């Protein structure tokens, strides 16, 4: 009980919990779940954009996109490492992903259907992710907070690149503008849903708030995102596909329409357009790579044995 009080006091004083510190088992479990889910999202998130690397329409864009997808893989690495500080192995976490027990961000279960999707993912998906993640830079768990600081910095860069890609396309041909609008139409609502269910229906939030893992509510973040995005859409010259979207001077915020939560839950529960393809691809990659990992282990063992014999 003393430990628990000290733990809570540290959090309340905005201090950081470090790996060697005592922490409640539920806190550890919640963090493992959240960090690994986040790591899995980065890795699965490589696939929708990865779909356009070989087809990028200019060498500059190809390099930018490849570097971006590589950054996402890097984020996955930091986050797996952060999760490992909580006493769980990466292999175990990956096994949870591939067996379907662990989740990843549902946004990656939608397809990328034209080149502009790459820009829209940068602008809107990464934009929403940043909105969600900035508060995590102040998360009570030190390794997670530090990983998030680095990740948010890179994500902001990606977001600007995505927006710039779209600006270029909107200044281009009619067909390029059509592609951007098409992509925005397909992604807008999915991005709003990224902030999770309305506060009224959210389950984990209260405990997470107390533990300093979550700091701002879903609805607040969603509103912030809408308020930030509408002016950007105007500059871009695209229409956000929501007839109810308009400035409310009384609230000092944009009003917007109802998210299709049924569709959201369908997708979260495995019935989105690409859930099976994303997971199937990860499973196949893991299985096809088994001989490589086995060989690396076998070689390392041989090397150790040789060093041992040489030393003996």
């Amino acid at each position, binding site marked *: 009980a003393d430990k628990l009080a000290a733990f809570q006091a540290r959090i309340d004083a905005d201090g950081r919990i470090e790996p060697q510190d005592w922490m409640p088992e539920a806190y550890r479990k919640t963090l493992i779940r959240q960090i690994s889910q986040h790591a899995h999202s980065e*890795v699965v998130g*490589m*696939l929708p954009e*990865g779909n*356009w*690397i*070989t*087809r*990028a*329409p*200019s*060498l*500059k*864009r*190809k*390099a930018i996109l*490849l*570097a971006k*997808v*590589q950054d996402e*893989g*890097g984020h*996955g*690495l930091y986050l*797996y490492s952060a999760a490992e500080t909580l006493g769980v192995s990466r292999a175990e976490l990956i096994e949870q992903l591939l067996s379907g027990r662990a989740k990843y961000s549902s946004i990656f279960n939608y397809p990328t259907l034209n*080149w502009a999707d790459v820009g829209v993912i940068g602008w809107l998906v990464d934009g929403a992710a940043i909105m969600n993640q900035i508060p995590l830079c102040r998360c009570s768990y030190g390794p997670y907070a530090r990983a998030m600081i680095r990740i948010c910095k890179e994500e902001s860069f990606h977001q600007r690149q995505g927006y710039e*890609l779209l600006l*270029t*396309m909107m*200044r*281009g*041909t009619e*067909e*390029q503008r059509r592609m951007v609008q098409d992509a925005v139409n397909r992604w807008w609502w999915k991005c709003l849903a990224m902030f999770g269910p309305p506060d009224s229906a959210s389950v984990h939030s209260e405990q997470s708030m107390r533990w300093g893992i979550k700091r701002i509510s879903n609805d607040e973040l969603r509103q912030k995102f809408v308020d930030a995005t509408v002016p950007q859409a105007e500059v871009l010259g695209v229409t956000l596909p929501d007839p109810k979207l308009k400035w409310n001077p009384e609230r000092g915020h944009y009003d917007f329409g109802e998210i299709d939560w049924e569709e959201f839950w369908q997708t979260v529960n495995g019935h989105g357009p690409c859930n099976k393809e994303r997971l199937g*691809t990860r499973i*196949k*990659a893991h299985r*096809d*790579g*088994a*001989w*490589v*990992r*086995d*060989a*690396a282990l*076998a*070689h390392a063992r*041989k090397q150790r044995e040789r060093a041992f014999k040489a030393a003996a």
Partner: protein
Amino acid sequence: MDALAVDTSVLTEYLLHLGDNALVLAQRNCQWCGVGPVLEEDLALANQSLDLIGQARLLYQEVARLQGGDATEDTYAYWRDAHQFRNYVLLELPASLPRVGYAQGDMDWGVTLARNFLYSALMVPLWEALQASAHAPLAAIAAKSLKEARYHLRHASEWVVRLGDGTDESHARMQAAFDHLMPYTQEFWTSSDFERAAVQAGVGVDVAALRAPWQATVEATLAEATLRVPSDQGHVPQGKLGVHSEHLSYLLGELQVVARAHPGAQW
């Protein structure tokens, strides 16, 4: 010798050859992005593809500068057809054991790493020598690329050893990969008009002279990997003369599809 003495068309062909090598291998290696055997390797390979795309861009930019007019780096990557590409055939092959152009199938990490090894074992001494090119922009690109190629070679060598001297399965796979790829390296040592002219002008490097150090690298690494150095007998490809395998047109079809659907568009 002054670089101005070289025919622009020779220099163009020479730079395109180097640029096409980099671009085509980058495109092949990009296909692993997100589906590699382990996350660290996904990143390492993406990194190398980025280096290669960077090299291709610099080389194509230099060609565009020489050619003048509206040409840009993308003119060469997106608006030439297979017979105009001057890359080694080795680099356009799919990451699999022998298979015709349209027969789809799983990729093989062993083939990818064996190819990266064979190619970067050439490019390290090649870029090294090209640092002395009489064409100053090429010398500068070589200096930058050399650092990258050294890293690519180290990475690939480590994996060749790891997989060759790993499990029975990985050993067999790596041996099969080298058996498959080795004959394609014969193209390194053949000469072509544009290479000869570039060498004479002091702009290019006589690749045949690099065969001994290349052979030494290959033999040393394969020995450490407990692999047999396979025969390089067989058909000698002529990719650098524009005669390719059935694979390049598929690779380019994918690479160019969006750009070509929108002629004149900016991205």
